[in-house]
């Protein structure tokens, strides 16, 4: 059973000065999968996300989306001597895209420490994420050309539908930061979905949620995956959530991949227990 590949991260190493934050990480996400990325604090999970979304250019390695390389790099300049990772010389090209370009290609994300637009309403927060698909130029948009009006109306309708799905339509005109914490997390997911992604990266979506909210979140993620025809890669600390919905799990420790497999395999893996689960439970 070979599924269509969506994301392929190959041999990513991210080194800051002398510190190797992500060490030779390779992972794959196939169409329709929900994949977990776990590991103790400081293992390099968020750094891996930042590499995939273009916030950081990796020191070495490549990222491919739908079989097309979107990011590729190898040690350059001072890093040539400093480089401590593996696979030196395997990657020859340099390709670096800014985060907005990668989002346009279909990768959307949420943030570990919620990053909503503080001065804007819930509705506007979602509308902003649709701005990148706007076809009318700045003159058309300012002077309200026919096309711009149609696009704006369409955007508003789509945004309303999204808010309805997340049960946020009553809070439409509230300031985003005035929402309770759980709803802010939902709004972040709604905003990410507004960019019409193929791959959704969730950075600790269940952080700070109680067991009941976590259970709701699990159902929500599965529903999103089915309705929007997505693949999901999530960082999560709640084992209940990770073991409950992830089809495969990658475990990071000190930047390096120590295990991968389905939830049962991970739960019984001695290295994982040593590094992570043994401490947690």
């Amino acid at each position: 059973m070979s599924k269509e590949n969506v994301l392929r991260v190959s041999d990513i190493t991210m080194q800051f000065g002398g510190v190797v934050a992500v060490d030779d990480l390779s992972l794959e996400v196939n169409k329709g999968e929900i994949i977990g990325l776990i590991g103790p604090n400081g293992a390099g999970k968020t750094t891996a996300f930042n590499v995939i979304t273009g916030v950081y250019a990796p020191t070495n390695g490549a990222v491919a989306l739908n079989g097309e390389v979107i990011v590729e790099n190898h040690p350059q300049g001072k890093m040539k001597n400093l480089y401590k990772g593996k696979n030196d010389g395997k990657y020859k090209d340099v390709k670096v895209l800014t985060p907005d370009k990668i989002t346009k290609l279909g990768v959307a994300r949420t943030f570990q420490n919620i990053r909503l637009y503080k001065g804007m309403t819930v509705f506007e927060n979602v509308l902003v994420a649709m701005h990148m698909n706007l076809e009318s130029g700045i003159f058309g948009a300012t002077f309200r050309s026919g096309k711009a009006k149609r696009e704006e109306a369409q955007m508003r309708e789509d945004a309303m539908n999204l808010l309805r799905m997340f049960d946020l339509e009553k809070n439409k005109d509230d300031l985003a930061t005035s929402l309770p914490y759980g709803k802010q997390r939902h709004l972040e997911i709604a905003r990410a979905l507004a960019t019409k992604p193929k791959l959704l990266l969730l950075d600790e979506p269940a952080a700070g949620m109680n067991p009941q909210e976590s259970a709701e979140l699990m159902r929500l993620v599965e529903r999103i995956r089915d309705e929007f025809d997505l693949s999901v890669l999530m960082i999560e600390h709640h084992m209940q959530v990770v073991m409950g919905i992830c089809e495969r799990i990658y475990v990071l420790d000190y930047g390096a991949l120590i295990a991968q497999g389905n939830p049962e395999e991970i739960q019984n893996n001695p290295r994982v227990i040593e590094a992570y689960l043994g401490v947690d439970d």
Partner: protein
Amino acid sequence: MTEERLTARCLSKKTKYILSAAAIIAVLALVWVLEQNIPPTSSWSMLFTVIKKGAIYSLVVVSMNLLNGFTGLFSLGQAGFMLIGAYAYAIFAIPVEAKDSVYQYYEPLIGFSVPEMLTNAMGGAGTVGGTLGEYLGVIILMLFAGLVTAGIAFLIGLPVLRLKSDYLAIASLGFAEIIRTIFQWDGLGSVTNGSNLLRKFPTFSSSLFPLIVSGLCIAIIVLLINSSYGRAFKAIRDDEIAAEAMGVNLFKHKQLSFVISSFFTGIGGAMLAMFQATVNATPFTSNMTYELLLIVVIGGIGSVTGSVIGSFLFIACSEWWLRFLDEGQFLGMDADFMRPGFRKVVFALIIICIVLFYSRGIMGTREFSWDGVFNFFRTLPTRLVAFFKALPGRLVAFFKALPGRIVKFFKTLPSRISGKVKKLTGKTKNSKNNHINNTDKREEAQ
């Protein structure tokens, strides 16, 4: 019952349009009638100076707010861009016969005048077509001034907009000063007349002209802010990282905001040239930028309405209402300290008070709306009654608590002072750690 009366009610869109149109026509008609009836010798003629300069400043301040308040770019190049606009207008508007008397020390390089050419082309001076031609020429030149300013802003933006916050402010301030020095440079004398005045170009006499032009330009800025692009600007202001993650091209949008803001600043500069009837690079220093920034803050960072109100109040105070402080009279007596310049002392005190106690400005981030106005007046009686009902109780409570508060203030004063001193000395000891933290942050930002 009261609750229902206090909830906001909305007017229909059509009513709002009618109200806005009526208000605009009423203001313009009022200004026109006043202009016909107030003689220039009257002390009330100061009103027109305030309207003219206030309208021009409104436009410049609103375009500065577009950058600072809506896109979150702390840019301080406004005076430089106004200067470009003013010169771009003046240089091409001086009539050909007047050129020799204006460019006394140089050979004028630009041998034509756009308004004059159009006047002649459309029927010559004195005819209806000629007058229309002159107006057309002036408007074309104002657009030209805006475009030149926008073009130069585009070039300056290429390096400058890659910087953030304070660094952007310093770099843009520097560029503005460079622009001023270049325009005063002797080597460009045949175009800019060096450090001498440019004058004798067409100006406006009625206050309606700046009011209408500024009004139109501000309306366009408001439309922009309320469009999808405006939302993208605000997203950049609120969170750059999140904006970029949601597909907003940071550099492109910052550049757009910078160029558009400069375009309207250039038009504002051209109008300022017309208002002053002469152009000289000397007053376009960073002081002017600070003045504009001050109005942005007084009006409210992120409020167009606030910027407009702030501009008119600021100009009215500095040009008119506080003039009496300079005239050496106090309550009918001679007062030595009320000499010229005292106005500025009082003005500075007022501004310090505003910044200290009212730091969100007049409007904060709110905007004018008809709904707001109506709801304000509808709920006013209820609120006034509630206020006066509560007043005696509050006053009594205040005076009852006062002695205790004063005692507490002086009792805790020594410990608070020593606490502050400790904090300050502690900071210097920790400066090494701070440095390490900073480098970490920088790495994170990369």
